[in-house]
């Protein structure tokens, strides 16, 4: 049946110009252009759907409060209120630096410890390696809320409550996801590279530092960006473990704009706009490595 259809199509084609004739080529081009047009329309619609909240946020950040919730919604302010940004910046800048500091500490130390652990699990041979790796992964299955109170008591006993330590030290010392991702990345590198370095007299640490680490830059970028985002957006940790206002972070500052009975939405959106700038810049700068890293580590087991 398929053959018959194909043959009849061929016959029809032969009668109206045939394969490669100008009419067929034009038809094909038109069809291709139509398909592409459709694809772009779908992509544009999706792109608009994804970017709409951002556009709304920007619009709301420049409106007076009584224009934010008008029905039907209007994306643009009647008169841009730049003073909203001055007020929001005034309120969130001290928190901004705390968030930046914590993100920096988390990214730097987590990359160090996760890459060391990932290298160990990928390349070194030792007894109980698989069990240790499984145990490491298992720790990620326990919801944090389960051990919140014991953790709080422990931090209190060692004097860490109302400091920044609980917000980065435990995280960088237990980098489950980072270790997993970097282990996968290290496993994709040919063993010959490592062996050649060993023949040249490189120690295990030199192999890790000078040979292997440069090879997994995309994965490091991926882990770095994800860690940055996790630290930057962390509301729960600062909320519970930090008491003093001058130590608080941006997510808490944003939440503080929410009142009990109403919210200053325009100021909150201005503060939110300020808070998304660093992740956005970071992502734009590191997106090549980030996408490469996620793709690469996802390919091999």
């Amino acid at each position, binding site marked *: 049946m398929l053959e018959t259809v194909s043959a009849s199509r061929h016959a029809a084609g032969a009668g109206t110009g045939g394969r490669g004739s100008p009419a067929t080529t034009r038809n094909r081009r038109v069809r291709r252009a139509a398909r592409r047009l459709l694809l772009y329309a779908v992509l544009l619609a999706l792109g608009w759907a994804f970017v709409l909240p951002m556009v709304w946020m920007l619009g709301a950040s420049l409106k*007076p*409060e*009584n224009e*934010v*919730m*008008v*029905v039907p919604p209007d994306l643009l302010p009647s008169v841009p209120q730049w003073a909203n940004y001055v007020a929001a910046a005034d*309120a969130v800048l001290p928190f901004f630096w*705390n968030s930046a*500091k914590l993100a*920096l*500490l988390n990214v*730097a*130390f987590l990359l160090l410890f996760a890459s060391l652990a990932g290298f160990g699990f990928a390349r070194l041979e030792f007894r109980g390696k698989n069990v240790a790796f499984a145990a490491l992964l298992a720790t990620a299955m326990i919801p944090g809320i389960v051990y*919140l*109170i014991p953790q*709080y*008591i422990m931090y*209190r006993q060692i004097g*860490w*409550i*109302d*400091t*920044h*330590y609980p917000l980065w030290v435990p995280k960088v010392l237990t980098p489950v996801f980072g270790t997993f991702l970097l282990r996968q990345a290290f496993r994709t590198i040919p063993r010959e590279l490592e062996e050649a370095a060993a023949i040249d007299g490189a120690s295990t640490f030199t192999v890790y530092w000078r040979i292997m680490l440069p090879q997994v830059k995309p994965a490091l970028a991926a882990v770095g960006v994800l860690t940055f985002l996790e630290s930057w957006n962390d*509301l*729960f940790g600062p*909320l*519970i473990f*930090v*008491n*003093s*206002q*001058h*130590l*608080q972070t941006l997510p*808490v500052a944003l*939440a*503080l704009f*929410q*009142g*009990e*009975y*109403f*919210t200053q*939405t325009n100021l909150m959106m201005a503060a939110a706009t300020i808070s998304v700038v660093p992740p956005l810049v970071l992502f734009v*700068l*590191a997106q090549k490595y980030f996408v490469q890293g996620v793709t690469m580590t996802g390919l091999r087991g």
Partner: protein
Amino acid sequence: MFTRRSFLRTSAAVAATGLAGAAGCGGGGSTSADDGITFLNWDPVEKGTPLANAVRAFQKGSGVKVAIQPAPSSDYDTKLLTIMASGSPPDAIRINDDFVLGYSQQDQLLDLNPYIKRDGLKESDYFEHPFTFPIQSDGRHTAWASGTQPNMVFYNVDAFREAGLPLPPTTWSDENWQWEDFLAAATKLTIPGKRWGVLVFDDTSSETTFTVNNGTDGIYSKDGKRFTLADPASAEGIQWLADLSLKHKVQPPWSTIQAGSGNPNYALSLFATGKVAMMTRNFGAASYLRQNIKDFTWDLAPIPARKSQQTISTLIVWAIPAKAKHPDQAWKLLRSFTDPEGAQELAEQQNLVPASRQAATLLEKAGATPEHLPLVIAATEHGVNENFSPHIQQARAIYRPQLDLIYTGQKSAADALGEVRDRVEQALAGRR
């Protein structure tokens, strides 16, 4: 040329330098136990806010240093629960009035009676509801209410005039302000496709107000053991609320209200933009309305009456945890919120009624917005609260989903509430 690569390298170098300094610094908090008191709350405390001013005045007058620990209201209860359970609470806390009973029964809040007696504070100097609410069945006075925010009817004066309607009462009176009058006004104020006549607040406050005023105990019996919302008169009140949308079409449909309820400003912005002519709301909303309504006049009215005319009166409550390290100084802070100077600072935004009768007269000064602002004082006199139980959250988790069925017309209030009565009462008895 400044490339992306060179930018990344420079950034990395700067980051490494910063890192060296930051890593050694945990950034310890400023207030230790010895140089003042710690004070956890969810109100804004930026310079110039009423609470910041009240605390500043207290520090100046008492010499006690106060380290404010702000926590967002949305996540406040989680924070409070964690620090109370860990046994290292701050010296003074803001506490949701829903949870005073539960924490009191766990002996986690200090009995303030010795301080109240020592300072000679008299109940008659305060409104009854805020003063007596924190008194437990065993006589302990485990919290201190500095003010109330009663639910009121907010209405668009211009819309009433345009519709040729007489304005609601300007005193706490039920004359021409029964449920039927309220409904008749809402019907006249409704312009299909343009404006709804009314929007009744969709939380437990309405479940209390419109049942108590129909002659029942509200959601629970006074001892917190019976689910009185399922009683016929209570169910009638809830059905009346549902019918505002379902039968009379004077209120947005439940699906619309639910869709907007994720946005805390939803109802307020509908009212502020003239899409709703009347709404029942906590008096705390007054600040938003003053700030955002520019093109019409609005005012306050009493809650409409049936068998009685009471309104839910949310309290602004503070407490001292039983394990606080500086209870004496913490009490001084709490008391300062009801002393003339502190109460005046807190009431400056005119969105609460001070618990002290003398301080409440501040709301009677001429020229305030809205015109009948002093009505909130009368509302406080007619204030009620939910009859609480330590198991209130479990009870709510059972009965509140039934309200969806009622408000969407899938079941009558009597049926939907009746079928969960036993389960709710078991929950109230702590058996779930």
